[in-house]
């Protein structure tokens, strides 16, 4: 980019790395697009491009688990990055985890049936400014 007018609309690069423990049945969605659905037997790496300014959510659902016979069934969200910025595990506390054990502790280890999600509710770089404690962000809002 040399001048302001050269600036192109650019996408975000999302990278998600998920490690199974046992053979968990999973559904992974980015916004409403299901990007994986099935039993996971090995490390899964997902890369997607997202519109720069659009809010988005990453959702990982552990769909079933027999707590008596398969206690070791789980999924670990090893890493979630946007444009190389590490969101998970660094900011686990910004994720939510609704599960059948009502265990709401922020985590990236999903051992209960339920839905983990991270929501970026505004343009990513504005969200990142706040998440990274970058100080005041001037706006044009009245």
């Amino acid at each position, binding site marked *: 980019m040399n001048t302001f007018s050269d*600036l192109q609309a650019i996408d975000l690069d999302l990278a998600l790395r998920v490690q199974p423990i046992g053979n968990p049945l999973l559904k992974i969605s980015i916004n409403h697009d299901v990007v994986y659905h099935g039993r996971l037997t090995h490390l899964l790496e997902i890369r997607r491009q997202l519109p720069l300014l659009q809010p988005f959510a990453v959702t990982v659902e552990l769909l079933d688990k027999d707590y008596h016979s398969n206690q070791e069934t789980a999924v670990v969200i090893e890493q979630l990055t946007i444009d190389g910025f590490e969101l998970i595990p660094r900011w686990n506390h910004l994720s939510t985890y609704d599960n059948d054990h009502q265990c709401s502790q922020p985590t990236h280890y999903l051992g209960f049936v339920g839905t983990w999600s991270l929501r970026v509710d505004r343009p990513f770089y504005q969200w990142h400014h706040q998440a990274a*404690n*970058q100080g005041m962000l001037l706006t044009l809002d009245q």
Partner: protein
Amino acid sequence: MKITHSGNFEFCRWADQRTNINIRDHTPQEFFQTHMAPIRADMLQGQPMSACHECYDMEQHHKVSGRQRQLLKTGVTLDSFEKSLRSSPYWPAFDASNATAGATDLTPVDWQIDLGNHCNSACIYCAPESSSRLAQEFKKLKILKTEPVPTWANRPELIDRLVHSLVSTPRLAYLHFLGGETLITPAFKIILEKLLAAGLTKVNIGFTTNLTVWDQGIVDLLTQFENVHLGMSVECFHPINDYVRWPSDIGQIKRTAEQWIMLGRQHRWYMTLRTTPTALTIPYLTTVYDFAKAHDVSIESSNFLHDPKFLRMSVLPMQYRHRMADQMQAWIDRQGIESTDQLVNIRNPAQLHLQITQDAASYVDYLRTAPDETHLLPELVAYLKLLESSRGNSILRYQPDYEHILRSAGY
């Protein structure tokens, strides 16, 4: 935006660019919307700005620059420039400005307000337009080139003009007041009273004090604002501070700093120690870092000193500079803080120790790599001797380690 002691407007508090657009003749809005348009147009065209050379210099030595910090307030970072720019809440304003040759209908929301040169200190690197005491001394020594221009802040109608502009600015965010010494400058108190009377208690108020004064009346005004940024000027916690920030007393400075810090803690103020490292004080800069760490306050060292040139750290011989850099690096290593990505929001209290070591690292880099300017040592010596003839002191009492350097340059 900035208003200087004379009342001239400048487009940035760090920019090295003089204008003659004065609050006597123009409103802040006129300057911001119209006179700054060509500057914005150049920036939008990707032109390097000659007025920004001090910030470019800081970045070269990995020191967080003013322009980085101001960009961050609109969400723009140099590391992710294009994407963060396009994502900025200010994007629509940038875009509109691009379509109108740099014009804008916005008003300035972030200010440095220079209030004139009322000052009880005569710091050796200061200038008559910023210190009335130094102006008197220069006059006595017959080296005052021109009388400082009377400050705009002595004229009630100009204060009213500025305050009217501030009060009518939507989303006014930050006002930083500088003297002289703010606490003995009548305009500081007057403006605070007017802002409070207008109900502007939510605006961030910043000010810098030289730690020689306490004024309970002003303290009582400051505590009525929700967010106050307190800047405390000190070069080091070593007696040479008294020589450089003449005629201060480091014991009293420390006590006053602790009094401000106690007050600031009660009111959750953001607090920084502000230093201007020079060739004379750089060996003791880590004493400021140690004080900052011990008291949980931040550091904002200014740009690498530009003027007067002969007080720059780069006038020291290379062997001295490398020795100081090694000592400072050893101090950094003792902190045990891993270096990470550059921390641009240096006002993040949670990253205080990282911010301090990052600042120290920039001085290590400067000491090791800035061009040699030892040819300016005779000018330094001549200046010190002249001031000492008026002040009756001697640098060698405070900085005996420099005797060889100074003697060899004519001391």
